[in-house]
């Protein structure tokens, strides 16, 4: 759970990266994502990953991203093992494993630096229906609340003798039931209360709701977007056309 919160929960920041238009941040992470799929050797992947970490450093979120990377290693080790068993090719297995880490880093970078408000803006740009966007924003807004609820529920059940850290995997999963049920029930009750509050504040009254805040794309945002695309193009070109011939 700490891994999830460290790697994907937004926290306010003041770097220039944070201040970029969220669509540009999305573009950068998307390009990063595609890049990880394009590289074909470990060395290139390592260089790409190092580049990601540099960007994370520029965005002043390097510590959190690096920590996420460390936690992801567990899953990537699992991927490595499965691949080695089925393909007997160590090099590609390592590639897939590290690729997974790189993918997590690129998506994590986006979510850590983008506030739910900005996420909403991005979704609106893609012309998603208002109900979907609203449901998403509200869900994200309640993530910290639900995390707190989970801790309180675990405290209450521990106080009734429930041992969450003991036993084999089956025992531990079974012991989660007294934590999951209250969590789910509370979420359902919460939805009901939210629905009442929504109705009481005229949700759905007009087909096109207005918005308090307006988002503008600055010249700087556009410049960064262009630079990102150019960097990607150059990288893709060198990975596909220049480097392989050199290595071969």
């Amino acid at each position, binding site marked *: 759970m700490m891994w999830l919160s460290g790697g994907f929960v937004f926290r306010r920041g003041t770097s220039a990266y944070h201040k970029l238009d969220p669509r540009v941040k999305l573009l950068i992470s998307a390009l990063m994502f595609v890049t990880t799929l394009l590289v074909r050797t470990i060395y290139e992947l390592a260089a790409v990953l190092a580049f990601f970490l540099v960007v994370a450093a520029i965005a002043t979120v390097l510590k959190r991203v690096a920590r996420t990377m460390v936690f992801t290693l567990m899953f990537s080790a699992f991927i490595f093992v499965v691949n080695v068993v089925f393909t007997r090719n160590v090099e590609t297995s390592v590639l897939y494993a590290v690729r997974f880490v790189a993918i997590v880093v690129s998506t994590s970078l986006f979510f850590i630096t983008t506030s739910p408000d900005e996420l909403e803006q991005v979704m609106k740009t893609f012309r998603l229906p208002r109900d979907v966007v609203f449901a998403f924003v509200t869900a994200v807004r309640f993530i910290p609340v639900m995390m707190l*609820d989970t801790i*309180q*529920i675990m*405290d*209450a*059940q*521990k*106080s*009734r*003798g*429930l*041992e969450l850290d003991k036993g084999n995997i089956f025992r531990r999963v079974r012991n989660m*039931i*007294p934590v999951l*049920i*209250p969590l789910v*029930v*509370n979420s359902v*009750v919460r939805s009901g209360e939210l629905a009442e509050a929504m109705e009481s504040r005229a949700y759905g009254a007009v087909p096109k709701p207005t918005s308090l805040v307006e988002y503008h794309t600055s010249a700087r945002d556009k410049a960064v977007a262009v630079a990102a695309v150019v960097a990607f193009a150059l990288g893709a070109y060198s990975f596909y056309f220049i480097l392989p011939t050199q290595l071969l």
Partner: protein
Amino acid sequence: MIEFREVSFVHQNGVKALDGVSLRIESGETVAVVGENGAGKTTLVKQVTGLLKPTSGSVLVDGEDTKSTSTAKLSRKVGVAFQNPDHQLFSESVEEEMAFALRNFGFAPAVVQQRVAWGLELFGLEEYRKSSPLVLSGGEKKRLTLACILAWDPDVVILDEPTVGQDSIQKEKLVGTIGMLRSAGKTVVVVSHDIEFLWPVQPRVVVMKSGRVVGDGPARTLMLERGLLETARVVQPQLVELYQGLKRRPEEPFVDPLEARRWVEEAAGR
């Protein structure tokens, strides 16, 4: 029985919730912990069963350091009723709910049956034995969580804000239950903003502010210190205010409106 030795606690986000708290609660005492929201009352409670461990200092329960044992073991001796019953009810039936903790603590099935029956009867929940705990009313849920705790018969019972959302009839029943626990020799700790409802049991009052204990004494004398209550943002019970207005001698115990009316008459020299 419960001892805090220079306990400080700092949250992960750097906020200091407890600052050098030293406190001793003896067996059989009835203690009320008061203070505004954020004063550290709940943090204090969580230290007793090891849900939180001190950043510095130590907490001892019956001589045992909370750092060296588990919450489950400490909970066998110290039952904590948290504020929100919806954070713990999950079983298919009320009787299953009551059996949960008993089974966790290793009670034999026959004993479990016995204790469940006893608890249901004591709290008037017998008619809901087979019902889902989730469909009970707010007041009934609170009674159920308390019944669950008393079923395993801990030496100490801690209640965290038991009166929130309760009406006056429910509060009266609650203070009656607390009185009963006291007569049974249990140590009772009540964390509450509302000190007035506890008057019939005349608790020892511990006042907290910003993670520190700023006042500690019997209710009847501590509640007279307006300055202290003011800084801790604790509201003086109305009858205490009246009492002070009539300038009575501080040793007199004050219990109820009938008593109060007698003082008024005496104050006027009738």
